[in-house]
């Protein structure tokens, strides 16, 4: 069953897009990270222009993060002060990145930037997660799992100015740390990668925030960052396709329920290993595209009217 996308200006198979949504929703319920990093490349593979793929993904992330953050907020897993610091960082860079997207697209460098970012970020996070989950599956290396309790509360960044108390996160640290992490996530989000897959491990392993609070606060960060990015992608770049986004949101809501039930059956380390393999596969696919000699040197793309 085909459906015509008014902004991408092409027809796609409705079922295929629903399946993408279900997989992304399932994956995020199974592994705890959203699937923006996977969705944007999948959309590009089926022929959605990169600009539209990048512009539509944030709407899906916002929709699915809204569902997740509500339940985590009720469970008290959200550090609002920490979240606000992250958001101030992410909003400022996301807004900048969206305008940069426009300039890069006009100069013809947007695809290059997207591909390089994907290879670097997915490759790095994929490798780290891979090593960590292999250790967890095969070894007894407990150190890789839960954050060590012996580390002093200030951590290695104790010398930074602007030390603050984050009650729910049970940490005292410089406000610069969440600001910087947020700033990095903002750029990723504006490039259609969500950023939860970086934010959650960074909060757990680098900033030593308890896992539950890290997940809850990351969801808040995804929700509020993606909402702003989605609004601006539609407003500034005209790149949000409403029919594509709605189909994906419905699919992802269905997939999330299925994934939530599966996650109680599958062990966590193996899920992380699966996630690592997916991340690495996407990174290798993009790397191959950069290195292989192209069959056609030229390419045509539409120009916004």
């Amino acid at each position, binding site marked *: *069953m*085909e*459906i*015509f996308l*008014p*902004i991408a200006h*092409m*027809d796609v198979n409705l079922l295929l897009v629903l399946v993408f949504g279900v997989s992304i929703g399932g994956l995020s319920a199974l592994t705890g990270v959203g699937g923006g990093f996977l969705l944007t490349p999948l959309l590009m593979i089926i022929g959605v222009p990169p600009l539209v793929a990048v512009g539509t993904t944030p*709407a*899906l992330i*916002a*929709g*699915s993060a*809204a*569902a*997740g953050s*509500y339940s985590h907020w009720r469970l008290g897993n959200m550090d609002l002060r920490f979240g606000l610091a992250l958001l101030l960082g992410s909003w400022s860079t996301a807004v900048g990145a969206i305008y940069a997207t426009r300039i890069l697209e006009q*100069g*013809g*460098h947007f*695809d*290059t930037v997207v591909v390089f970012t994907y290879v670097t970020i997915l490759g790095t996070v994929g490798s780290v997660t891979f090593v960590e989950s292999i250790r967890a599956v095969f070894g007894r290396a407990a150190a890789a799992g839960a954050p060590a309790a012996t580390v002093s509360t200030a951590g290695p960044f104790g010398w930074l100015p602007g030390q603050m108390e984050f009650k729910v996160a049970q940490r005292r640290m410089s406000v610069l740390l969440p600001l910087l992490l947020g700033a990095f996530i903002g750029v990723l989000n504006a490039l259609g990668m969500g950023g939860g897959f970086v934010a959650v491990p960074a909060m757990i392993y680098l900033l030593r925030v308890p896992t539950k609070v890290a997940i809850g606060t990351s969801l808040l960060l995804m*929700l509020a960052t993606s*909402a702003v990015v*989605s*609004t*601006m*992608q*539609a*407003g*500034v770049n*005209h790149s*949000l396709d*409403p*029919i594509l*986004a*709605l189909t994906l*949101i419905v699919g*992802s*809501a*269905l997939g*999330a*329920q299925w994934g*939530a*039930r599966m996650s*109680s059956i599958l062990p966590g380390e193996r899920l992380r290993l699966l996630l690592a393999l997916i991340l690495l596969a996407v990174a290798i696919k993009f790397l191959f595209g*950069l*290195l*292989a*000699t*192209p069959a*056609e*040197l*030229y*390419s*045509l*793309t*539409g*120009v916004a*009217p």
Partner: protein
Amino acid sequence: MSGLRRAFGWSLALCCSVWLTCARADSGLLTDLESSHVKITTGFTGQHVFVFGSTPRSGDIIIRVTSPDQAVALSRKGRVGPFWLKRGKLLVEHVPGLVYLLSNRPLNQIAGRGVLERRGLTIHSTLAAAQIGGAPAAYRDWQAAFERLKQKQGLFRKLEGDVRIDGGRLFSANFPLPATLPVGPYQLDVYSFRNGELKAHRASILQVNEVGIERWLSRVALQHSGAFGVVFTLLALALGLTLSMLLRRDHGRRP
């Protein structure tokens, strides 16, 4: 298929009657379209357009379909260290988004190259006004690449043999337009040739437009983009939240 055949039979009958009544008044070429509108709806996957007509005497028919101009960006990959990257992007302007040439037999058998080119009846000659921004160094390579890619996308096509001629004077053609077609008024030109010479020409208009929700959505998203962004994002948030609550209730709350 039976619908097509019916349309064909119906149009032949119509052609005959039109031709018989008009023959005395106007000895020229007669053409018509089964429908002068291509409507882009939610389920649009492209559409067949049926053209038919009659000529006063037997000969050859060439039909050219041209969409409004559509600027596109053409980029070329180059090697940077070990990587293949897009290097430079040029704007191609003053060029139709779609050009179809249909004929009853190969174009070069219908008329000489000079005649065809003068009338814009080769793909290359319809692009005479095209401008590739910045006039790159190897201009011809860029130009050839542009034509090649457009043909690959099915937007520039030569359909030789797709015009059917019955009884020497009645002709018809049924050609497919792709879903990715540009919108706007299309120019449809029918040329009648005899012994390599142009005998008659008729032009008609084919409208290609989005209709219904597609039209509404693309208009709102492009003309009121700011408001659309805010409203749609709120809708996405509400939909995500509502669906997760509804579906969760169905399966019972997990502990």
